[in-house]
């Protein structure tokens, strides 16, 4: 039995009713889908079982919901768990992982800055990449983006 199966069984036995889905994506990579209220207990359990490194937190706007995707790694057990926390679209709030992995600090600030997800319990949730007085969260799908850039020759621009 591979290490990802061990982790899967451990999570399934501890969070029986709370895992919405769990599947092995490829050897040593496990994917778990949970509701946002279960993120902190699952993260704490993973930390206890040797997952010492938080690789990444990615926020995705799926129009009907937000997702906060955490890639959590264990170097010692050589395994990665992708924890997908689903967040309702009208209330983008999620518990902060700062207390479990301090490395979540910048990831969460970035997700707040660009996607507008509020991480409750974060000690310093400020904009990180954009200026402090910026009003929007540009990675949201309702933030307009130029789709096709038509090539305009210099002569046309000059009116010739």
């Amino acid at each position, binding site marked *: 039995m591979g290490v990802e199966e061990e982790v899967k069984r451990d999570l399934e036995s501890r969070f029986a009713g709370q895992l919405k889905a769990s599947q092995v994506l490829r050897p*040593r990579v496990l994917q778990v889908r949970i509701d946002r209220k279960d993120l902190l207990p699952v993260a704490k359990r993973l930390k206890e079982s040797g997952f*010492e*490194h*938080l*690789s*990444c937190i*990615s*926020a*995705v*706007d799926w129009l009907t919901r937000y997702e906060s*995707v955490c*890639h959590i790694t264990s*170097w010692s057990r*050589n395994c*990665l768990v*992708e924890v997908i926390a689903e967040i309702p679209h009208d209330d983008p709030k999620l518990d902060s992982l700062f207390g479990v*992995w*301090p*490395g979540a*600090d*910048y*990831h969460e600030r*970035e997700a707040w800055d*660009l996607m507008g997800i509020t991480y409750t319990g974060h000690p310093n949730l400020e*904009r*990180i*990449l*954009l*200026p402090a007085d910026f009003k929007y969260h*540009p*990675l949201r799908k309702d*933030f307009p*983006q*130029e*789709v*096709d850039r038509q090539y305009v020759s210099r002569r046309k621009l000059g009116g010739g």
Partner: protein
Amino acid sequence: MWINMGPQHPMTHGLWNLKVRVDGETVVEARPEIGYLHRGVEKIAEVREFHKVVILTDRLCYVSSVTWSHAYCLAVEELMGISDRIPARGRYLRVISNELQRVASHLMWLAAYAPDLGLLTGLLWSLRERELFLDLLQALTGQRMNQNYPRVGGVRNDMPATFARDCEKVIRHFHKKLEEYEDLFERNKTFRMRTEGVGVLSKADGLAWGVTGPNLRASGVDYDLRKLDPYDAYADLKFEPAVEPGGDNLARYLIRIEEMRTSCDLILQAVKRIPEGPYRIKAPRRAEGTAFRRTEDSRGEALFYVAGDGGDRPYRVKIRSPIFCTMSAVPTIMRGEKIADVIGIMGSLDVCVGEMDK
């Protein structure tokens, strides 16, 4: 007293600001301010076709372009479900280009780090050797920088006929030069005084703050994604990732010198074992679902999380930049250091603002 080191400061090697609060000469608090170079790569990627994003990811880090576009291609291949169909020759060419880029990137780091500590010779010497590796990259890809070489489904073009011989020649020459570097740096009293025991990052702190790459291996964590999660042809090649227990500036220097040796060794193995055959397959245009892949970039763990909605453009691209995460550990490293050492410590971390600010 607060001191702004940046955004225009010789220390920064780019555009960012490190605010330090000092008590006498001791740093009691440090606060990085980043974002000056934010170009919105993730947002722009959402309106470009999958294949056209490669050229954007090239520009994430201008001294390590190939490794970044390579990581993006791996993630998109995973999303399209073609990652096990990449031809063997393409996978070997990716290893070769990645390792050439890694050596060039580490040499650029050395070239920036040496003048930080007042060793101008180091700058000239390492740029001289970096040029040899850029020549090799140019022979392989056609460009010195921003190569736009990896493709979704393989690499852009095959290597030239004399490439294996050229690599061997350059690497034989480079090994001699590496010994000269070691004489220049490690037997230099000033260099040792400014690096030994300065800027210590403990193993526990490094893991907690998400530091990766050479900086984490210099703190005694034996990890390397090329070994732990082998991609491309790394599983076929023999190498041992270097580990240093020190955690200080000197350890971070030693680890990069050792990594250049490892990379040269990997290049030699790869050009010897490279099989004949096609180097690229035709990739589909559309993709649906989500996928991620991570690679060992020159600076640490690079991760791309790509989502597709069935169209020919990515729905979302998320970039995990190793230096972005390392930057969050800077306040911890800086606490208790002397103000004069701030430059040496930041230099040893190998900051690349392009990938940090995305």
